[in-house]
């Protein structure tokens, strides 16, 4: 109970700082280690490495896990809904494609060393964009990020060095098929772990508390001495870096980029949807959201291969989540566990129950 909200408990007695929600609680580490082990061993499981389709789905799942976790560092902790992170995804994708083309980078593992560059370029781009967008608040901010997205889509289509609508080809790594997907999967997994570590350390830091104070009440946070613009901008830039890396990895996996694939409005929406389903502002929520949604989505496209039906299901699912589970799976489950413990009695449970259930979403 140290956060900014804690200094003024009288104002909102029902609020528990989000910091104490899963999975930094006891057992969180155990769950994390088991999950990581499962993820590492997954390609060796029956139907894993042997099945090209499954590993391809697994690759897209880890890409989205990294991107949503990164998006969550900004949106989840600051409360500002960003709907333009496809800009950073696309920028990372184009950075990799252009670097490979212009520097004649050999295909294969060497290309992977370009990924940090993709992150740096995306992060550098986030500085001017953030400076403009963060002049505004809340819903105006959302609209500005959408506008940025469309500007970059237009630029990618029309500038000469991006190759127009055809985009840029990237030479395919010389790997045979099951190995191809497995290699990309592991690189993606490394990005996920690194992003999670970043998210975890932000959350535990003074910086993270400042962000969450902004989320709870920006004016009050500023009044208490949080340099709000600087904090928000830093979070925006930090969250752009892993998304850029994911974009670069995506371009490498797809052997190229084109504007509609790199700057995809559905990508923006997917990040938000996955974040909201899992629970934004939590560590495990984005992972869970990406796992559930991306694997469902890939399966849907494999089964139906019908755009229309898939779009309807996707949209309806999104609506259902927003209306029925506005706080996401992880916070709702955490709340259930806490109230269940409270009913059984016990010291920790009483502490949790004493502070009440968090009424405020996010």
């Amino acid at each position, binding site marked *: 109970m140290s956060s900014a909200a804690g200094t003024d408990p009288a104002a909102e007695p029902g609020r528990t700082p989000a910091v104490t929600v899963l999975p930094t609680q006891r057992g969180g580490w155990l769950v994390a280690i088991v999950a990581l082990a499962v993820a590492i061993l997954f390609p060796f499981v029956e139907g894993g490495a042997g099945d090209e389709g499954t590993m391809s789905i697994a690759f897209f799942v880890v890409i989205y896990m990294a991107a949503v976790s990164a998006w969550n560092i900004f949106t989840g902790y600051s409360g500002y809904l960003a709907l333009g992170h496809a800009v950073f995804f696309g920028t990372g994708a184009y950075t990799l494609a252009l670097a490979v083309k212009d520097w004649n980078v050999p295909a294969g593992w060497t290309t992977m060393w370009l990924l940090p560059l993709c992150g740096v370029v995306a992060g550098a781009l986030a500085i001017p964009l953030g400076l403009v967008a963060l002049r505004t608040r809340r819903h105006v901010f*959302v609209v500005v990020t959408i*506008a*940025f997205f469309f*500007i970059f889509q*237009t630029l990618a289509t029309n500038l000469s060095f991006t190759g127009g609508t055809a985009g840029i080809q990237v030479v395919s790594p010389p790997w045979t098929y099951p190995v191809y997907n497995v290699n990309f999967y592991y690189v993606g997994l490394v990005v996920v772990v690194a992003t999670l570590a970043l998210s975890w350390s932000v959350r535990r830091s003074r910086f993270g508390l400042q962000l969450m104070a902004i989320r709870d009440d920006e004016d009050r946070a500023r009044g208490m001495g949080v340099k709000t613009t600087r904090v928000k901008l830093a979070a925006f830039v930090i969250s752009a870096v892993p998304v850029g890396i994911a974009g670069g990895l995506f371009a490498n996996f797809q052997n190229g980029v084109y504007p509609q694939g790199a700057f995809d409005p559905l990508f923006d929406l997917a990040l938000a949807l996955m974040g909201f389903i899992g629970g934004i502002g939590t560590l495990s929520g984005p992972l869970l959201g990406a796992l559930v949604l991306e694997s469902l989505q890939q399966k849907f496209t494999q089964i139906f291969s019908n755009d*229309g039906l898939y779009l309807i299901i996707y949209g309806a699912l999104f*609506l259902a989540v*927003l209306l029925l589970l506005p706080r996401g799976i992880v916070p709702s489950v955490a709340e259930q566990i806490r109230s269940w413990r409270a009913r059984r009695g016990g010291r920790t449970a009483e502490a949790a129950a004493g502070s009440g259930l968090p009424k405020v979403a996010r």
Partner: protein
Amino acid sequence: MSFDALVEAIIDGVLTGGVYALMAAGLSLIFGVMDIINIAQGAMVVLGAYLSYVLSVHLGIDLFLGLLITVPAMLLLGMFLEWGFMRRLREGDRTSMSILVTYAFAIIIEGFLTLSFGTDYDQLSAPYINSSVHILNFYLPDIYIFGFALAAVVMAGLYVIFFRTKFGRGLRASLQNRTAADLIGINVNRTRMLAVGIGVGVTAAGGMVYGATNAFNPGSGYDLISRLLAIVILGGMGSIGGAMASAVFLLVAADIVAVAWEPTWSILVFYAAIILVLSFRPQGLFGARAARAQ
């Protein structure tokens, strides 16, 4: 750039501006009433275009006459969306959540249209779509003139509804202070539901003119929404007259960019307008009301 080309760009811009104002009116209205940013506005325009398409191709009903069917149909759709979803959003972060919810509407509408019509481009056809009048050196397509006239009539109608009727007074009262409006006997929920219905219904008219002047497919809504947002933001969210003025202004600017520079870059006028206006004058150029920036 010749003088004639410039004049033609300006005339074109004014006429298409009317069409865009008609498409943007619903967006502005729904924001004004509900504080909801309707990302599905583009998809609704396309839905309106397809409804007119079905009526004219399968039943042979004239496009303008068909509005007597499509506008009430979309009005009911709007009332349903307000009743089913919009009013259920929490008060605190309603605007941000509304962007996600209406984005979901857009995807569902796009899905239904893709299922029914496929992704090929269609265009509405009628005798007056390909004919034009010749004034001085310029050929003005009839449909643009009719569309502009329709926009003017609809905008005037909206003005009358909101400023000269009891319903409009109740609506404006419930915008200013919900609780007080409740207390003096205004049924705020019903008023809002009807207002959102009118906003979506008007969009059917915009969709018809859009479909008559552009080829469209179920995904065209994404292209539109950024322009419509730019118009509404520049005009001041919630202001109908502002939407008209800013639509004409932006379309003229875009046409001049297209003539003077290159057509592919004209779209940037809209994005630049969004960012500049929101960063430096969040209430819009024509909006007098203070921005609800929080």
